[in-house]
Structures are given as C-alpha cells and as structure tokens.
C-alpha cells in the first residue's frame, strides 16, 4: 500500500479563484488572513481555550503489553517470552467485566496520573475488518472513514469549522510531514518538528537580512491561480513567515521543571511552551514512533520497555509542568495507535500486526478509569472477544466513538456532522 500525497490533486488549470478556495489546497488560504488580525486573534484563541494534544504511537502499539491482563492464563501461555510477569505489573484494579489489569512496569508516573483519576484508558478500540497495514490503518484512523479513507482528516474537518480568520498556529504538527488527520480544506497546518530550527536565515545581516525576509514573503504571497501547485508551495512559505515570530517566542519558554531529553520529552516541552505563551493552538499532533515490535520486544535492551520509559517520563513531566503553570485543565491528551498486535507472540521475541488496541486520554478535566472490557485471550475460535481464529483482539469500542466524545465534549464541535454518523456513546463520558 502506498501512502498518498496530501496536496493539490489534479485540478484544472482553468479553475477560478473561488473554485480553488472551495475545492483546492488546504494550506492555501492563509494568505487571505489579514496579518493585522493575528495579534488579537492569538489573544482570543490563546490562554483560556481548550487544547487537544494527539499522541500517536506509531507502528502498532502492543496494547497487551501496555495494559496487562495479568490474571489471564492464556496471556502467559500464548506469550511465553514477551508477557509481562504478573509480579511486575503496576496494578490498577479491575474493569467492569471484572478483569484485573496492570500497567507496564515502566509507567510509574502514568500510574500516578491514573491514581489521581486523570487518566482514562479505553480498551479494545478499533473497527470492523481492521486493516493490518500500517499505511491503510493510518489513513483509516486519520480520516475516521474505514470505507473510503482518502478524504480530508477528521481533525482537518474540525479545523474547517472554525470561523475565520484562524490563528496561523491553530494547529501545530510536530512531525516533518502533515498527518492525514490534520489535512484540511481551508486551514494551513504548520509542520514544526523543531521550534529551535524554525527560523529564517540569511546570507546577510542587519537591515539587508530583514529586507530579504520581507521580499521572501512578498514573492511567496503571489497566488498564481493557474498554477495551483506553486500556489500550494507559496502558501506554505507564507504560512511559515507568518508563524516564525510566534514560534520564536515559544522557544523562550521556561518550564517549571526539566523535561527529559528524549524526542517526545522535548516535543511536549514545546507544546507546553506554546500553551503558556498563548500561541492560539487548538490541536497539537505529536508522535512517538517505534511500536512496530516484530522482534526483540522485551529484555534489557528491548524495544517496548524503552518506549514505555520514554512515554512515561515525557508525559509525566508534561502533566506536572502544566499543573505548575495552571494549564492542566486546558489540556486533553489523546493517545492512539493504528492497530494492536496479535494475541500471541511470534518467533522473534515480538508480535505481528493485529486488530484492536487501546486508546487513552489524560488531562486535568478527564474522568479517569478503565473504560470497556478486556479480551479473554482464550484461543478458542468461538471466543467472542477475539477474531481471526482467536489470533487477534476484536474491537469492542469503535474508535470513532472516542473521537466523538473528544469532538463533542472537548472541542465543542458536532461529532455527528464531522464523523458523518452518530458514534456517540453515553458510557464514554471521559471528558
């Protein structure tokens, strides 16, 4: 499966400006937002507004190692070399089905958040006929449309509902490329993998350098109607110029504690900085990759414990920093992955692509706890909590029901229209 390119598609060269705006390139209309508005806008949308931080666990998170059904004998018989020993898990009680569960032993700080009641874990999230392909899976989760995962992203559609003009930093992608979930018709999404490197350099200094910056933006501000792909590139340059100064402000943020030096730690430090400096960002997208643990998942140098340490240390620091800054109630972190992994291990101390996984939410206003029920890992093909002849975990909660709650209960938008159907569920009142 090839990933598709997000950008201007095969548009007619004869299109009018209005056609282009209606149909065309998402990152294009920034040029229309009058710069004079931007300052007030940032103030209006900055501190005081709710922020969603999407944390994508890239590669297919092994949910059964993160949230361990440590009393299920099949968990140990089917995963003899990768199971987390019952004595090591961080016990967090039972779900409503009575299954006792424990967090991965490296998630000590995260367990503290759970104990405070600010971490919700939604078990067995997924969808019917789950794709085992990373790329198709990412598109399905990104569009929230398993039947036709080529549309704009679910968060991009949300951004499209915001009344213009929107802040140029209304969405903040911490990756180098914009994920499908954030592709939008009308809102440019800046990609800011490193706030420190997000600067304008010049071969000159002083006023000559300032002049170059002004001309670079002037050149990019042209909207060649008959050259939509050039307009798309120019709109990105223009958006970069419009966001440089605000991002520079974020880099001067002084957190209340020292963040881990890991990639995720530094990214979440930047997110806190953007929140604290009133960047006006409603949606952040951050990623922790490396979850495609086909091999060498456990052990002293195992991939999974390393990932859990990075996740735990970064999220714990972020949570504490936000609390110290008085911003905790403005943040909702939502974690997900494109699929869970097989119920049983493979021969390389790892496990292969599976179906349902888990999602989690945390933040100052989250109603924490265990949502949904764990699977029984009994390999009996008739076991209703598994699928694929007892090989993979079967979903219990459609991931779009979690999205729906985030949209309705946090972003204040209408999930039925954004998701194209009613996925709301009363029992998922985590926020």
């Amino acid at each position, binding site marked *: 499966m090839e990933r598709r390119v997000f950008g201007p598609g095969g548009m007619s060269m004869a299109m009018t400006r209005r056609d282009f705006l209606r149909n065309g390139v998402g990152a294009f209309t920034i040029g229309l937002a009058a710069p004079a508005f931007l300052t007030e806008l940032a103030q209006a949308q900055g501190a005081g507004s709710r922020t969603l931080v999407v944390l994508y666990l890239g590669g297919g998170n092994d949910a059964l190692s993160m949230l361990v059904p440590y009393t299920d004998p099949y968990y140990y018989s089917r995963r003899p070399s990768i199971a987390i020993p019952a004595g090591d898990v961080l016990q967090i009680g039972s779900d409503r089905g009575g299954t006792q569960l424990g967090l991965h032993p490296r998630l000590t700080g995260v367990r503290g958040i759970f104990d405070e009641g600010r971490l919700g874990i939604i078990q067995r999230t997924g969808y019917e006929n789950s794709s085992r*392909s990373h790329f198709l899976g990412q598109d399905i989760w990104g569009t929230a449309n398993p039947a036709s995962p080529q549309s704009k992203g679910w968060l991009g559609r949300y951004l499209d509902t915001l009344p213009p003009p929107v802040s140029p930093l209304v969405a903040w992608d911490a990756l180098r490329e914009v994920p499908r979930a954030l592709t939008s018709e009308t809102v440019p999404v800046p990609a800011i993998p490193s706030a420190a490197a997000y600067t304008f350099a010049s071969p000159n200094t002083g006023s000559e350098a300032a002049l170059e910056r002004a*001309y670079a933006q002037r050149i990019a501000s042209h909207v060649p109607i008959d050259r939509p792909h050039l307009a798309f590139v120019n709109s990105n340059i223009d958006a970069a110029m419009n966001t440089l100064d605000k991002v520079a402000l974020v880099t001067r943020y002084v957190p209340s504690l020292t963040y881990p030096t890991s990639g995720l730690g530094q990214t979440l430090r930047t997110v806190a900085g953007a929140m604290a400096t009133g960047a006006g960002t409603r949606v952040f997208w951050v990623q922790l990759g490396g979850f495609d643990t086909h091999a060498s998942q456990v052990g002293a140098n195992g991939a999974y414990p390393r990932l859990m340490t990075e996740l735990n240390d970064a999220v714990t620091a972020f949570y504490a920093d936000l609390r110290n800054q008085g911003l905790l109630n403005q943040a909702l972190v939502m974690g997900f992955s494109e699929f869970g992994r097989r119920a049983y291990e493979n021969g390389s101390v790892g496990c292969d692509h599976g179906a349902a996984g888990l999602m989690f939410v945390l933040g100052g206003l989250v109603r924490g706890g265990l949502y949904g029920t764990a699977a029984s890992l009994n390999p009996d093909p008739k076991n209703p909590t598994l699928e694929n002849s007892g090989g993979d975990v079967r979903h219990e909660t459609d991931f779009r029901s979690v999205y729906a709650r985030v949209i309705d209960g946090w972003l204040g938008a209408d999930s039925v229209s954004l998701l194209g159907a009613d996925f709301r569920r009363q029992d998922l009142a985590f926020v």
Partner: protein
Amino acid sequence: MATGDESIRHLLRRAGFGASPDELDYYSELGRSAAVDALVDYEQFDDDVDAYIGQPGYVGVTARGAFSPNTVINDARQRWLFRMVHSARPLQEKMTLFWHNHFATAYSKVAGAYGASDAARMMAAKPGEDPAGLRGQVETIRAMCMGSFRDLVIAMAKDPAMLVWLDGRFNTRQRPQENFGRELMELFSMGVGFYTESDVYAAARVFTGWNLRRTAAADPAPKYEFAYNAGSHDASAKTFTFPIYPDGGRTIPARAAGDGMQDGLDLITAVVSFPATARRLVTRLWNYFVSELNPPPEAFVDELAQVYLSSGSNLRHVVGRLLRSADFKSDANYFTKYSWPAEFVARSIKEVGWNGFTVNDAVGQMVNMGQVLYEPPDVAGWEQGAGWISTGGMLARMNFAAQLSRTQAASLASAVKPYAKTPDAVLSYFLDRLAPAPYDDGAYNDLRAYLTASGSWTGSDAQLRAKVPGLVHLIVGSGEYVFI
C-alpha cells in the same frame, strides 16, 4: 554564463540532479539523443567518483576524525551527496535513490540490532573497501539498479540489512515471521488489492529459513551474511490465491527442506511477473521521472509495462524507453515534479557553486527538509510530491539556500560582474544560471525590486556582495525552484 537547450536542462534535472555549468556544456554538445544514451548506458564512464572526495575543486566533506563512509553513516550520507553532485553517471545515482525509497530500509533499526558500525557497513559498505568484502544494501542497489527487477528483489530478500529491517532473520518454521512476506506483496511488487491475509501467512512460510548469520568469531573479518537454514524452513506446500506458475498453479509444492530456498525464488518470480507489478512500477517511475502533476496516459503505462514484461523485468530497457518517450520530452511536463530534498540540495550546489562548501551542511538541513538518506521514515519510503512540502520543510530549504549563497557570495559576485551594469542584467544572469520554473510578473517584479530596495543601483562591488547572495537566496528559496 551558462546556456543550454531547455530540453537538456529538463533531462538533467530528471535523469540526474541538475547540471553544473560544465555538465550543461558537455551534455548540450552531445545533443539530446546522445545525452540520453550517455546517461542510460553509463557503464562507458568510469565509476571513479569517490576518488575525488577531498580533492580540490570538488564540494567538500566534513569528518570527525578520518572520513569513513563504509562504517560511519553520516559519512556515508556525505559520500552519496558527493556522488549526486559529481558523478559522471548521474542516472545511476538517481536510480539508486529511487530503489532506496522503494526498498526503504532504515539504518537506525539495523543499528539498534547490531550497533552503529556494523549497521553502517550493512547499509553502505563498498565491498572493495570492507575488510570482509561486505556489500552494503545501497551499494547492492547501486550495482543492480538498471538490471533485472527480479534479480534486484532476490538480492533484497537476501540482503543483510533487509533481513534485520523486516525481521527475516527470525523467520522460522516454528514461528513464521510475516513482515517481509507482507511487504514483498504490499510495497515491493503488486500492491494492496492483489493478495489476502492468507497469502501473507503463506508468504511468511515461504521465506522461513531465509535468515542471517555472523561468520565465526575466529574470522579475522567477521560480518553478518545471508544464510539459508534448511532446518528452519517449512517444507510443506503453500497455496496462494494468485497463480505462482505459468500453468496457473497456485501451490508451491512440498519440497525437501534442503531444496526449500526455491520456494522464495518461485514466489518472487511470480510476483515480479504480474502485470499489476509492471503497471505499479511504471507508474512509480512516471511519478519519479516524468510528472507528479499529470497522471500517466494509459497508453504510456501499457507500453512500458509491456517493455518490462517482455524484457524479463529489464530496468534499463524500461527507463531508457521512458527517457526517450514523447511524454518525457513534452514541455508540458517541465517543472511538474516536486524536488526531493536530495534533488534540491544536489541541484542547488551544482547551480550555485560549491567553493569551500561541505555537503555535511546539506546533511544537517536535510533532516528538517524531511529526507535523511539511509533513514526513510518507514517501509513505504518517503512521502513524496506535495508531501515534501510543509512550513518547516520550506524553511529548511530556504535556510539551506541562505547558507549556500553565503558561502558562494564572493564567487557569485565576481561571476556576475560583467553584467553588473543594470539590475535587470544581474537578474537575467541568475535566472539563466539557476533556471527555476518561470516566475509570473508579480514575483519577477519583486525579485527585481529587491535589488534596488535599499538604494539605487550602482553595481559596485559592495552592492554586489550584499545583493547577489540575497538574490540567489530568494531564488533558490522560492516556490518556483522547488519544482524540477
């Protein structure tokens, strides 16, 4: 002042990495048809580009300690960029990059398994320079990039870095490992829609025993190498939902384990021979060489798929036909491809100059442009086309342009001196030399206005030293220069 036929410049942007003034002269003198021959039949030129690394007159490299591209991955990245800038065989580097993206293997996972030095060897070592004669994955690709696709896939299936990347090293009959078998079908050949999950299971079993071994510790030059372990091979029959054999047979028969390697060869031979594979590869080559903005005409795909299938997946035939096609030559396809960061960087070095410049600075900026050589983001390779473009990515391109033009300020100013009399002549010189996609009037006027924005034009040396690098920065950093 550089001159050149537009069709030659187009050819060199696509089949190479742009052109330095000398290259442009060379290929222009050949004429278009002979230039294509020279690009495609590149074995007529010595493969000696690496010998010029560190020599005066060439772009520089920066090493911590001794420059060691066979064992240090950052040095391997520099060596490859050096080749892109200076190779007499630009199409070989271009095809190597194409297949590096296709068989997208990332150094970091190999390094996680075996450490930095062995991983760099497995990705980039030249056999003649490795103590054990190990050939790194990208060197294997480089040697085979215009041969038979079937041979290339087989080489990749046995490639040590690939055996780590897609976990083939763990694939045993007790515990079949699906990773390679799945991607062979999903990404390397026919693509999604032509196989089922049951084919994934069967393919995993086919490649059981295609593992890795380390030569004995007593070996003075140990290395990891492919090993077929008959004892780990699942010798039973494997049935697919698609035909494996020319007679339509869908079952790879049970074989003695000792003969079981033939299973994998049978499966690879089958999948590379599918019309769906031919059409998918041709479409990918179209996007890489001809256009990302215009879709390939059906007749083009039909014709090249036929060349592929009738030539036994001969890539030189396919690519040669593509470069000689009317579609490739058509000026409607000029500037219809978003440059990859590697293309952007190598082209701008060639066109702006490299006096005192080191490709190490390009390696650094390419991180933020979104392309780290030997480190594709995942097994599907890089997100291409508009996927390269983001605010951060454009800033990185602009900042690279700033860095490059700063280092070349003196030579650029002196090169344009004969045209310094008017700002229009200066602008015209650089538009010809850098050959970006055409500017519309508005952007052109802005470039022109920049030259006189801080004072009237005198053409003095001081003015040239400030304005010339600024102008080159603005051109190379503009949206027009993204397209090739």
